């Protein structure tokens, strides 16, 4: 018989599996589970976007596109980045289309990181930065953001983490799972530390459209002098509720994009054609849909934050994405214990904070991409669970 332990790549085998999956595999076996675990919009893709996808199929646009994606779409992306975030990118040389923001992250790390290079990973954060860095032979160096800093990366933390081997900083804001964001003045401070170094920045801005309050999201690439070192990753999943279409993009300096497109050619060829046609419609006509969904998320966000604080689970007020990240320290449990017990007692599924890096221990991630009624019911159950704990 084949001994697979001898066959498989040790680099692959040694990667830890995502902590989110493992937990939800248990939850999916149970009945009457209310989940607050899903990291994608509950809205359907706006109808006009779906219609554009259908039309492209009706017209028979069923071939590959150029490796970098339809030029019409790249041009719209360039216009969009300029309109929403005052960024200026050449659609021919500096923008290309990927299979979700995830692929862009993968390609960016692989295009830049060499064995032994250190990659600064701001944590808690999306689960893929660390394993992809390891696959390239790079060394992930976590920088733990703190609730008392509103889960922002500070200049001091960055300064302290930089060594001569530092190659890349991954800047994941608005942040999954904390909901933390970086305002312009915070980005200016980060830029000040990076000026005069050769450190590159992967700015994962997939939640850029989901920033609450009066000020809009500011792209790191728009900070003076940062464009030359920044690869902006964004996509259609969160802003336009298009997760299943698998479409994202990267924008950055031409020499970096060129290498990323080369890797993309060999691995993927091109992003799905139907999705690309649909995305053109999204960028041309669907700004109002973004506003509508953001308003809805904002109401839920307030409801959930207030709910947790009332229950006594201290909750930092997130200003971005669609997650809250309440502390569970006062229960004395680990995140994992808390989530398992909550699931068993009240059939509510939330994600243990340590799934997003060690610094997430002591927190849980709660998604509010659910209907108000669903959230109200879930909060009621969580409140009952906390009271039971307190009375025992």
């Amino acid at each position, binding site marked *: 018989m084949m001994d697979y332990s001898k066959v498989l790549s040790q680099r692959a085998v040694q990667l830890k599996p*995502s902590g989110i999956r493992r937990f*939800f595999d248990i939850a999916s076996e149970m009945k009457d589970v209310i989940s607050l675990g*899903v*990291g994608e919009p*509950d809205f359907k893709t706006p109808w006009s976007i779906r219609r554009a996808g259908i039309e492209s199929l009706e017209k028979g646009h069923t071939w590959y596109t150029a490796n970098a994606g339809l030029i019409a779409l790249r041009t719209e992306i360039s216009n969009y980045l300029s309109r929403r975030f005052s960024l200026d990118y050449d659609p021919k040389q500096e923008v290309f289309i990927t299979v979700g923001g995830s692929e862009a992250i993968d390609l960016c790390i692989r295009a830049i990181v060499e064995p032994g290079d250190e990659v600064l990973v701001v944590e808690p954060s999306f689960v893929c930065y660390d394993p992809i860095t390891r696959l390239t032979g790079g060394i992930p160096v976590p920088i733990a953001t703190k609730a008392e800093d509103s889960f922002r990366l500070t200049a001091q933390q960055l300064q302290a983490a930089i060594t001569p081997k530092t190659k890349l900083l991954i800047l994941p804001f608005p942040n999954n799972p904390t909901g933390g964001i970086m305002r312009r003045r915070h980005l200016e401070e980060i830029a000040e530390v990076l000026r005069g170094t050769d450190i590159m920045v992967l700015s994962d801005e997939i939640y850029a459209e989901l920033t609450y309050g009066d000020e809009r999201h500011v792209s790191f690439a728009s900070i003076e002098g940062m464009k030359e070192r920044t690869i902006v990753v964004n996509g259609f999943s969160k802003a336009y509720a298009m997760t299943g279409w698998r479409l994202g993009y990267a924008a950055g300096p031409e020499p970096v994009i060129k290498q990323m497109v080369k890797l993309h050619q060999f691995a993927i060829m091109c992003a799905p054609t139907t999705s690309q046609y649909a995305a053109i419609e999204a960028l041309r006509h669907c700004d109002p849909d973004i506003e509508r969904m953001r308003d809805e998320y904002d109401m*839920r966000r307030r409801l959930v934050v207030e709910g947790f604080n009332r229950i006594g689970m201290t909750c930092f007020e997130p200003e971005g994405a669609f997650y809250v990240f309440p502390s569970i320290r006062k229960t004395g449990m680990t995140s994992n214990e808390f989530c398992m017990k909550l699931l068993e007692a009240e059939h509510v599924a939330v994600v243990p904070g340590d799934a997003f890096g060690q610094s997430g221990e002591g927190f849980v991630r709660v998604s509010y991409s659910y209907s*108000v009624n669903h959230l*109200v019911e879930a909060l009621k159950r969580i409140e009952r669970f906390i009271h039971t704990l307190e009375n025992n």
Partner: protein
Amino acid sequence: MKEQDIEKMLRLLADNAKLSNAQIATMIGASEQEVADAIADCEKKGIIKGYRALIDWDKTGRDLVGARIELKVIPNGVMGFEEIAYTISQFREVETCYLMSGGYDIALTISGKTFKEIALFVAHRLAPLEPVQSTSTHFILRKYKERGIMMVEDNEDEREVTSL
């Protein structure tokens, strides 16, 4: 409260009238008192007309038959469209009554215990009204959606577990 916040409040209530004032206040960023005042004001002005449960009677023992009736009417010296619609709206059986553009003038939905009861209502109550020129009765076979809410089993949350 600001106009746009009142609209947000009304949209929340239209979706779920059981939300507490505190919950609404949190969601729109107002105080509980402001919400209570705004609701009272909307009730007084007749903007909020009532709070009623949406019940799927098919799941209960109570038998109900629903119908949609299209009326063509000819206003006369005594009764204009307004008076006709008002008169018809007074019948207890009438659930909705709208003045329409297009091929007919007034659309009603009504419900009764049996098909016969509805037929008799049309024959004895509506048809004799002088301005009513013709009636066309369509029985409702199945309700899929009512006031924005799915009456048939809605899709489960299809979102599957992924790594994020």
